[in-house]
């Protein structure tokens, strides 16, 4: 348990991302929902120093957290006019896409994705397609092959059942 707690206390090493297992994703998330991206828009902050992108997701099925109809994700980066701000590893959302997302509460009205793009599964037909998984290429230094902790693609229902089991 101590190890689990220590892992949970450490933020995902983002552009140096620490891989999160499904269990860690589930535990770190305040909210897990399956839904559809309703809108994506970007705007300057009040001081006009940083661009933020807001993603509104219509919730089809809540898996963790208090049920709600929509959820608003706010994350740094996006395009306004001729300026593009971008951060590698930040999840990309497109209007109309279906997704399963692991979210942490950011403030009273907005959430952020857990572990950058590890916390986003795109739903394609009845599969959940994960965004970040391990390489099967060799690690030069250790000679080890990094292995995915969960499959890159899983049947959606199977993934949701695993999540439900972990929440019990």
């Amino acid at each position: 348990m101590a190890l689990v707690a220590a892992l949970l206390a450490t933020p995902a090493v983002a552009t140096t991302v620490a891989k999160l297992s499904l269990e860690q994703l589930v535990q770190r998330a305040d909210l897990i929902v399956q839904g559809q991206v309703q809108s994506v828009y970007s705007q300057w902050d009040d001081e006009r120093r940083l661009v933020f992108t807001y993603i509104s997701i219509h919730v089809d099925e809540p898996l963790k957290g208090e049920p709600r109809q929509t959820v608003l994700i706010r994350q740094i980066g996006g395009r306004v006019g001729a300026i593009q701000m971008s951060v590698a590893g930040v999840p990309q959302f497109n209007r109309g896409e279906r997704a399963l997302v692991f979210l942490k509460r950011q403030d009273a009205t907005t959430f952020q994705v857990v572990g950058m793009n590890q916390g986003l599964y795109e739903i394609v037909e009845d599969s959940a397609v994960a965004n970040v998984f391990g390489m099967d290429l060799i690690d030069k230094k250790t000679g080890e092959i990094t292995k995915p902790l969960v499959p890159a693609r899983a049947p959606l229902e199977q993934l949701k059942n695993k999540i439900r089991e972990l929440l019990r």
Partner: protein
Amino acid sequence: MKLWNWNLRTSISIGMMVVSIASVVATPLLGYVPRRTVVSGQVVIAKWVQPMTWRMNPTRTPNITGTPSVESAFRGAFQTWSAVSTATIAFAEGPIAVGTKPGLDHINLITADLTAAEWAAYGVDAISFTNVTTSVTTGEILEADMMFNPAAGFSTEATTPPNVSDLQAVATHEIGHMLGLDHTPLASAIMFPLVVGRSFSRTLTSDDMIGVSTLYPTAAFTARGSIEGTVRSMSNVGVFGAIVVVVGQNGQPFATTVTDPDGRYSITGLPAGTYTLLAEPMDGPFAENDLVAPLLTLYPSKTVNTNFTTRFR
């Protein structure tokens, strides 16, 4: 041959394709793994046009341990990239910027001096990140700010203690983003995004060096060899979004790139030698959002093929 086996194992379908090396092809749109943007309908590579001046806020926050200074870690990271002999990277260090916060202000800032509330407002669940500001009319990088999470542990020591990250190594990775590099699919490279049970290195790999040299080439780099070709399916259709890996004679991955919508690739800056090529789908080995989504933004009417196996001919 081991690489070949791994390549087979990562593949998930029975579809077959062939990697062929063509001696003459049109110039591919995609190079190594640089940041790309669309300017007037054309895909351009985001890069600095002018020499880049960076400034640090060296304030040491309680989450940073170790005897060496924060300043030395930051400077060491920039020196690592400056030392790439085949790239014309021009860095200058500007005045110390105590109290400066990230944001569009014409200061290329590197800072760990952030409060938990400031960090939380970025909405990024990370230990560090770099925000790169680009002109969508020219592709020029206008500004880049690098920041470190005040809740994450960092060390400045050469030997990193358990459960914290090496500040200089993480800064080295982030400077790659500042320069215009995106994440690479090669696990051994500095620009690989995931840490899986190991520490990041402060040392660049050939993949990193070729990446940055492709963006900022010296004449000597341009004069080196290149491998160009097309990844095609058995039905002779170009495969979009295949990761092409150049493997050296010692069996180690040397450099990577990604094919364009016609299946074309080009890897430049290769020293004379014998190489083996692999083609990997992006599904298992690499982050969909790291490469597939940006590729589809650039080529919205195209479909990335992540569903193939490879064999040599």
